[in-house]
């Protein structure tokens, strides 16, 4: 029974991963081809559907409860604070550099989103250990 539940949970996580990843990939591919708005729309709808699916799976298999929400809240708050401060410093430096050179937006926003994602994952792991 327990193994079946684990299999179902893994299946739900796999579906979420595939839908989420494919949406982002399609979005990026269309953006590269020049269809920004179509890409954004597909990416948005895909990510939204994946999120809604995962939310229903969370309720069904009781993956999330008040402790996991508490961890998520703490990790999100920490990520926001760190990212906000880092972005402020980063933009100040870029503001100074922009007088001497042209800096493409992609090369700024891409690493910044990656930094946010890594910070969130690392912080979530930290708080999960702390509250377990």
């Amino acid at each position: 029974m327990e193994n079946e539940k684990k299999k179902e949970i893994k299946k739900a996580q796999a579906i979420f991963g595939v839908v989420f990843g494919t949406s982002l990939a399609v979005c990026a591919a269309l953006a590269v081809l020049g269809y920004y708005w179509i890409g954004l729309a597909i990416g948005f709808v895909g990510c939204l559907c994946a999120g809604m699916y995962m939310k229903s799976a969370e309720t069904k298999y009781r993956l999330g409860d008040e402790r996991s929400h508490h961890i998520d809240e703490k990790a999100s708050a920490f990520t926001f604070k760190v990212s906000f401060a880092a972005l402020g410093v980063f933009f100040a430096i870029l503001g100074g550099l922009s007088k001497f050179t042209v800096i493409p937006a992609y090369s700024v926003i891409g690493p910044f989103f990656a930094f946010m994602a890594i910070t969130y994952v690392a912080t979530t792991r930290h708080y999960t250990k702390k509250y377990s």
Partner: protein
Amino acid sequence: MKNKLKVLRAMSDLTQEELADKVGVTRQTINAIEQGKYLPSLELAFKLAKLFNVKIEEIFVEDEN
């Protein structure tokens, strides 16, 4: 904050999984509460108290240290 959840659970002959099911949380949450690593919400504390038919302060005791 100390708690007597583990004792009360043992007295009721419940596993962590069964208790978790009864109060609508995960087994990991019950385990974290028992180890004193996570303080439950007031709602969950009331659910636990109601389930064991005791007062909240009989489950959760303020740590003097």
